[in-house]
């Protein structure tokens, strides 16, 4: 290299990496460390972390025994299991049925992506309108049967409504990933099974699904992590209510920080959430590490 001495050349990668690394340290890592520190203090919005406000692990213990926290955990667990299960079943099922190249598939895939692209706040508001008891289109259509359920005012129905919304938004995601996976499968093993006289269902059960398993596991993990991170859709639709019936964990953290203003409580919960999402993220890395896909 003409310009640089050996010293300059050794410096080059650091100069390339520095801006990104500094911004991530300041905007991601430092806040996470600060959240960890906050979790030990009992402070309200605008207050400082003084020694007098130090509570140690008491805040964690309190948070874990709090009934609204437990309720929110239960709601989040139920929500994640239900939506991810339904999305996987529908998305993978449709991908298997529509696997062969179809004319116009690109157009359809474009339309399917739309629900994931628009702002979550819009998704929440659209579905709040869809499920509105008086003016909503769903009750408009149901009025033919003389039905007028108060979707968002009933705990069970409201929970159902937020599940429907998530399934609407993310089934296409599973579909697109599963379809891409199927189209990348090694066709020779499918052909071999056909030669051996396997039925379509047998081929799916014993050839395609096992080959697809790594992609499906990754998809499940990505969906679970997203379900744990999201709060905007529910914030717009129900704001966690009625009662705590739709209070997802992320929403609970946000509300306890900025509505009831219990910062320490909220920070302690957010550390819990962070541990779970990071563990899932690490699991995801074990299966699919983009840094190990050399030569691709």
């Amino acid at each position, binding site marked *: 290299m003409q310009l640089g001495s050996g010293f300059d050349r050794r410096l080059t990668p650091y100069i390339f990496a520095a801006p990104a690394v500094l911004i991530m340290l300041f905007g*991601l890592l430092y806040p996470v460390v600060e959240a960890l520190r906050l979790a030990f203090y009992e402070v309200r919005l605008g207050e400082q972390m003084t020694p007098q406000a130090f509570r140690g692990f008491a805040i964690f213990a309190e948070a874990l025994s709090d009934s609204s926290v437990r309720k929110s955990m239960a709601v989040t667990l139920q929500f994640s299991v239900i939506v991810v299960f339904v999305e996987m079943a529908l998305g993978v099922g449709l991908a298997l049925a529509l696997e062969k190249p179809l004319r116009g598939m690109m157009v*359809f895939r474009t339309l399917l992506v739309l629900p994931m692209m628009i702002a979550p706040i819009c998704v929440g508001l659209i579905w709040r309108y869809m499920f509105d008891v008086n003016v909503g289109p769903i009750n408009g259509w149901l009025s033919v049967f003389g039905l007028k359920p108060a979707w968002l005012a009933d705990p069970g129905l409201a929970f159902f409504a937020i599940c429907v919304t998530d399934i609407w938004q993310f089934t296409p995601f599973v579909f697109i990933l599963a379809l891409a996976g199927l189209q990348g499968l090694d066709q020779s093993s499918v052909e071999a099974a056909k030669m051996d006289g396997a039925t379509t269902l047998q081929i799916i059960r014993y050839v395609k699904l096992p080959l697809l398993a790594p992609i499906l596991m990754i998809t499940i993990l990505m969906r679970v992590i997203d379900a744990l991170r999201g709060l905007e859709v529910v914030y717009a639709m129900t704001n966690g209510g009625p009662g705590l019936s739709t209070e997802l964990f992320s929403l609970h953290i946000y509300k306890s920080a900025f509505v009831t203003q219990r910062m320490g409580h909220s920070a302690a919960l957010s550390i819990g*959430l*962070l541990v779970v999402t990071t563990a899932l993220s690490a699991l995801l890395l074990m299966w699919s590490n983009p840094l190990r896909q050399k030569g691709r």
Partner: protein
Amino acid sequence: MPDAFATNERNNNAVRLAAVAAFAAISILPILVMLSTSLKTQRQVFSGDFSFFMVPTFENYRTVLEGRFLGYLGNSVVVSLFATVLTLVFGTMCAYAISRFKFSGRSPIAFGTLLIRTVPPAVLAIPVYFIFTPLHLDGLVGLTISYIALNLPFTIWLLYGFIEQVPTELEEAATVDGCGPFRLFFTLILPLLKPGLAAAAIFTFRIAWNELVLASILTNRTSRTLPYGVYLFITDVGIDWGQLMAAGMLVALPPLIFTFVAARQIITGLTAGAVKG
């Protein structure tokens, strides 16, 4: 016999086409509901008989744009554009360093980045408030910094894959010709990464444009961005659905347009990480 088979195949195709068309229709129906509601008068909306047919009126859009909304729109455009451009430049540079150089700190940066990409916004909200406010970084500057940080992991990770596909012989030849590492990067490598940059740009812009949680705590009346502006249409006295949907359409429009223009890049971005190749 061959004829029967052909007919069967054709029917089969028709069924599959109908199925995927129905799936797509369900995906866009609620968005069409938003569009049609935004074009209705208040009386039509509150009649309770939903219909896609009406004489369209732009009254709702006019009312929405007469308020503070236009200012929010400007804020959103500024924040999203700055965040996107800076994320792409810094992210690609970092991905290049990880891909092409061996240096101490390479592995911690690479794995730290990958691990931190799933930090929930709700986890960041409280500490970011505590850190940014005393530094007077609340407002649009702080928001832009947050969005760059939030988007860097995905961008680095996506662009890394694209850089790995560029043969190193190219750079070796350029180096022999006396081209320094920075000129090499900006004039030779960057142009080759266009598809990856397009995908990363769309995802970054989308996150910055749509984000609500950090925006709601870092901005005030003058520095609000669109998503929170839309949320403010929900008031204690009730919701004017027509206006709300008009505001929602304005927020949804840029991502919708991007999707139609660059569907292929979006699907590349969505499947990156799960599906190789």
